[in-house]
């Protein structure tokens, strides 16, 4: 697969950059072929899934597919998945004389509370045949009873040195010419998120093999379109109709959910240079409308309504 994040994903624990102390402990689990349930928490692109996949490969070798499944909680997050797919896999014996099977549950923090409670029971019941690795961004979203059943590993954003070293290696393997400033820029933009850094590098390299700073910034800004910025500006100028239409088009174009859109509005407002009093009122409103969407309301209507509030606050010149 010629998508670099996959192509250069480490296959073994030894190949993993950064996260030294975590890797050390994981290796001892593999060596003794015994481990507790694991909870990996930390920001995106720090190697959580990679560690889990590497453990599976090292434990089970080429046959890893039989004793390992990977589920994405944000795609399959209902209680039915826990009761169905996971339970079915967990209750059969491991193959090839292995002590246990392994289930990787990615983005576990997007599981509903009910699903988490069901999961807790499954973890207990089938502990004889099965281990879980739960990946999440925020461990606080995982219910306590699950946390207490897991060994918790906190992944930190990769340090600059490790990111640059790895990007250098990828660049030389791909035959790219890349300057030190460009490497630094990649780190600055990605803030230790390796997935983002590598994606950005590949996108830039698809335009030119000669990667320099200005090209990186250009691609980065292209990959992160600023429609949302425009929406906020239009709204604060009191241009309701235009702001609302642009928002709907943007949501449809990028497949943004209501919550995604709210998140972006939120970070945009934080970034903007606005009077203190206006900013805090805007954030209060944004929070309120996020709450309403979570309560089960229609996202398009709620976003329209939020924009109407922003229009008023902006025009009132608070």
């Amino acid at each position, binding site marked *: *697969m*010629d*998508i670099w*994040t*996959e192509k250069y*994903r480490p296959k073994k624990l030894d190949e993993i950059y950064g996260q030294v102390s975590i890797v050390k402990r994981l290796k001892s689990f593999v060596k003794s072929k015994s481990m507790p349930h694991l909870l990996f928490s930390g920001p*995106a692109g720090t190697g959580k*899934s990679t560690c889990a*996949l590497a453990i599976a490969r090292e434990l089970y070798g080429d046959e890893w597919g039989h004793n390992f499944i*990977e589920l*994405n*909680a*944000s*795609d399959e997050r209902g209680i039915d998945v826990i009761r169905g797919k996971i339970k079915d896999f967990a209750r059969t014996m491991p193959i090839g004389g292995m002590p246990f099977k392994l289930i990787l549950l*990615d*983005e576990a923090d997007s599981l509903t509370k009910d699903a988490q409670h069901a999961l807790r029971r499954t973890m207990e019941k089938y502990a004889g045949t099965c281990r879980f690795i739960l990946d999440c961004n925020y461990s606080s979203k995982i219910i306590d009873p699950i946390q207490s059943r897991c060994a918790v590993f906190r992944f930190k954003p990769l340090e600059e040195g490790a990111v640059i070293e790895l990007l250098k290696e990828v660049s030389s393997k791909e035959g790219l010419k890349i300057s030190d400033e460009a490497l630094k820029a990649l780190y600055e933009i990605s803030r230790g998120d390796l*997935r*983002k850094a590598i*994606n*950005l590098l*590949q*996108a830039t390299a*698809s*335009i030119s093999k000669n990667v320099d700073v200005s090209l990186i910034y250009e*691609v980065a800004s*292209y*990959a*992160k*379109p600023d429609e949302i910025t425009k929406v906020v500006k239009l709204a604060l100028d*009191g241009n*309701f*109709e235009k702001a*609302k*239409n642009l928002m*709907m*088009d943007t949501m*449809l*174009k*990028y*497949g943004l959910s209501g919550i*995604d859109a709210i998140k972006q509005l939120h970070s945009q407002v934080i970034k903007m240079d606005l009077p203190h009093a206006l900013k805090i009122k805007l954030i209060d409103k944004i929070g309120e*409308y996020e709450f*309403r969407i979570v*309560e*089960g*309301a*229609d996202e*398009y*209507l*709620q976003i*329209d*309504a*939020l924009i*109407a*509030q922003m*229009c*008023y*606050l902006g*025009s*009132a010149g608070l």
Partner: protein
Amino acid sequence: MSLPWYDKHAPKSTSEIIGQGIQKVLKCVNEKKPCLIVGPPGTGKTASAYAIAKECGMQLIELSVDEKRNAEYINSVLRNTILTRGFFGEKLVLIDDVDLLDRGGMPELIKCVKMSKVAIIFTAKDKWDQKLRSLKNYCEIIEYRKLRAAWIAKILRKICSKENVKVSDGLLYKIAANAKGDARAAINDLELLGKDGEITDYEFEALTYREKPISIFEGLSRLYNAKDFNEALKALDDVEMDINEKLLWISENASLVKDLKELSEIYNYLSRADVFIGRVLRWQHYRYWAYANALMTGGVKTKTPCYKFNSPKKILKLWKTKSDRASRNRVLEALRTKIHASKRKLMNEYLPYLKIMCKNNDFKNMLINELDLNPKDIDFL
């Protein structure tokens, strides 16, 4: 044989159909162009077809709701009818209430319409009905409106003289007005009251007010022009639509308000109404509907009256971007098996970069081959 009066005194010629665009229908029939008459009940849609057939000496073939109008029926009955010329003069096909076809009927009907050699008239109640969307592309659309009370009174007067019913002009007008634009209902009422040959105030009292569904446009007009809060609350009661759809229409038109303070207040209430609707589903507590309705009607009632309304853009936009969204889903689905990430992660963290990479043709072709995609699906990137 005793026919009901509205049948017995149905219009015999096109000149008896008043206040509607019958000339346009006539033109379509002469040109053998399919036409769709839309309008509320009792405005003369079906009567127009009969009157035209009679006046022009055409053979009327009617496919009405009392048949099971599914694909098979349309295929066997209609196909033969429209492909052959009439034996007893020209044919006129009337398909009443075309919005009420049985399952599978509509696609078959459209196939037939495309190759039809005879005149066809369709009738339906509501122009905005989703089921008519594709049919509308193949027809001339002619709108019939509710009849004015004065016109209905004229029709009633004619019938009275034929049936020897004594009634004052004032009372006749009251009967006409009471039918709210529905001539058939007015004639029914007249028959009911006038059987004994005379109608007095006493008989009129017995006439019950007829509940009628109204169009969303009329509902919105009632809402925006309501005298007070309580009237606003009831404005949409007679619109036959589920509450979510009503809310969609109201919110679309709420943006017509220009004052930003008022706008933000209105939207706040709409948003709250929407929250209550969500809670009904979540908690199965149906009383919340009362709050939702109050917030979405009473909450948007404005000081300025308004008479012109838009239909929701969201549905249109969703429909227009449907194929793009389907392509995006197929790409994500294919990527998901290769890259260890959820759809959401793919969408947020990979798609923006893939868009750039796909400008490079080598990469694009690689992606198409690796993921076994239809090249068209990639194009949306």
